[in-house]
């Protein structure tokens, strides 16, 4: 397929292709970080993760409508407000769900899968009733559209850059929270030994609720960011769920670093294959590869060997 192209053309395509891979990587990380916290740290199989993302997307859409109609002067920066609100909304819903549902099921992880699947059906129907069955289009401020011309032939998408920076920020914040803050210590303590953590005075219920809330909040931010590149509709959340779980599981559920590495591996594989093969085949091969490797290394790619 490369006959008849100049070396420069090819080089710039490869640069842009690398950039496409990085965008996909950012998307995967955003999708998976919240789940890595909820599934990896708490062991809850949250099948409604996609619906929490879509809640964030709908919040963003509502913000765009409100800003456009009432305070158009501030429209260029509405997206930041929207992301904050998306975090709050999804996080609050997450904490409510934890209180009403999840906390009764910590001893039965497989049952959280069924219960949250039920939750996802309910949320989908609620979205459909409230926002209508059709997809909503989220308007972006003009500065977020289009692309930056780096050289004559190389251009990079502004929203791609935005998603990437957002990913970096969120990842850093999460890493800081997990490994430097009191909450992070408590979460790790609870994960390692719930009973002991309780015995030394950690309010495990509160930690659980907060953790679940933060995980869902991150999903909300991800959903908010995805309005730039994907669709917002009642069932759009389902598009993400299998990919998201595979990223987390592939990385080794307990490890945040693993999640990021696995997002990188899968995104690069998929984006490279998509370039050389057709979309469907690339997807099938990526999934097959992930499943195959998981069979060889069930504990995930990037997990330390520990004594059972």
């Amino acid at each position: 397929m490369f006959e008849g192209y100049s070396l420069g053309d090819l080089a710039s395509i490869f640069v842009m292709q690398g950039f496409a891979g990085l965008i996909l990587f950012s998307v995967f990380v955003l999708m998976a970080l919240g789940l890595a916290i909820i599934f990896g740290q708490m062991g809850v199989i949250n099948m409604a993760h996609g619906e929490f993302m879509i809640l964030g997307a709908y919040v963003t859409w509502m913000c765009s409508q409100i800003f456009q109609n009432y305070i158009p002067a501030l429209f260029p920066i509405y997206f930041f407000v929207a992301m904050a609100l998306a975090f709050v909304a999804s996080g609050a819903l997450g904490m409510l769900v934890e209180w009403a549902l999840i906390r009764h099921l910590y001893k039965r992880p497989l049952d959280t899968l069924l219960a949250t699947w039920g939750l996802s059906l309910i949320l989908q129907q609620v979205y459909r009733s409230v926002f209508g069955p059709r997809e909503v289009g989220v308007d972006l401020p003009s500065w977020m559209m289009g692309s930056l011309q780096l050289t004559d032939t190389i251009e990079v998408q502004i929203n791609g850059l935005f998603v990437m920076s957002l990913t970096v920020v969120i990842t850093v914040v999460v890493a800081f929270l997990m490994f430097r803050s009191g909450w992070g210590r408590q979460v790790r303590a609870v994960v390692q030994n719930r009973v002991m953590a309780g015995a030394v005075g950690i309010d495990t219920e509160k930690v659980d609720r907060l953790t679940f809330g933060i995980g869902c909040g991150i999903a909300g931010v991800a959903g908010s960011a995805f309005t730039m590149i994907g669709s917002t509709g009642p069932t759009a959340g389902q598009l993400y769920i299998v990919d998201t779980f595979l990223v987390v599981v592939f990385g080794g559920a307990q490890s945040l670093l693993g999640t990021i590495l696995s997002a990188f591996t899968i995104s690069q594989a998929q984006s490279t294959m998509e370039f050389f093969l057709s979309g469907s085949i690339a997807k099938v091969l990526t999934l097959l590869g992930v499943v195959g490797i998981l069979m060889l290394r069930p504990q995930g790619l990037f997990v330390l060997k520990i004594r059972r």
Partner: protein
Amino acid sequence: MSVFSKERYGFLARSEILGLLALAALIVVVVPLSLDIFRLNLVGKYLTYAFVAIGLVLCWGFGGILSLGQGIFFGLGGYCMAMFLKLEASSVENTKIQSTPGIPDFMDWNQLTSLPWFWQPFKSLPLTLIAVVAVPAVFAFVIGTAMFKRRVGGVYFAIITQAVAAILTILIIGQQGFTGGINGITDLRTLLGWDIRTDHAKYVLYFVNAALLMGVLVLGYFVRASKLGRILVAMRDKEDRVRFSGYSVASFKTFVFCLAAALAAVGGAMFTLQVGFMSPSFVGIVPSIEMVIYTAVGGRLSLIGAVYGTLLVNAAKTALSESFPQLWLLGLGGLFIAVVLAFPNGLAGIWGAWIAPWFARLTKSGSHGSAVANGSPAE
């Protein structure tokens, strides 16, 4: 020792025999007498899902292996049957307007000029019947062996089966020349010249299906009552202990997974026969999870409960979606949550905790052997 001979006939306890007879009376006598052929055909369709649910009781309820990919096997079984029926419906005479007569219409539309090799065996009914069970079982064996030998279990297994279902769906939809794509294999007409679309045929198929289902239930009880059944429960409980009692845990898991797959496939084949087509929408993740909920509603430890659970959920689905389509998803979602939170043992649990004791008091039979449905422990 005396306890074991009491109330047991072969591998069935008396309560189990009564339960089977009651179910048989319901689906073979009561339902056909009280429903018209349209509704009866619907019930027949629901009962094909019950095969999957029974498999899931064995695999998930007893064995603790949650598969979110049973749709794969239901679909494979159904596709095998559909391939046979499609070939029969695509006789040279029926397809003479095609550029290549004698091959299924969708192949012709996709420029195939001859039948692909893997379709060849489906010209023969015996080979098809073998394939209906063997293809899904072999597929399950491959997945199972690979995963269980590597000790992939629990959540990981569930997620991987889900991914496999996703892969298979994409493949079936994408390879439309070989599979009929998203439309599936449609317009099936006759089985060895016997028109399966007539009311008469629907009746016959319904009873064949019901008989098979009862057979599968008895098989389930046999497995449950055998030492293998107890090993499954033991494995769910303390996998390591079983291993250190000298059993190859992976082999047992693979076996029960294959068995569940084969049962699902039988259901799929009966589905194709009764509904008249098969489509990739059964292979995917959503139907697979729905099938798990049938099992959960019936009670994950109760073989017979799986049948009632399937019937109940589907009847509710049909009734609700006829009158309040918007409410259906809310209802189904609520059902998932309610079953998990409030009734982890489903209908069988409700039966065992409330109805059966009340029944026992009423009849003063004094037999509390039937108190716990199916004689299985509650978790």
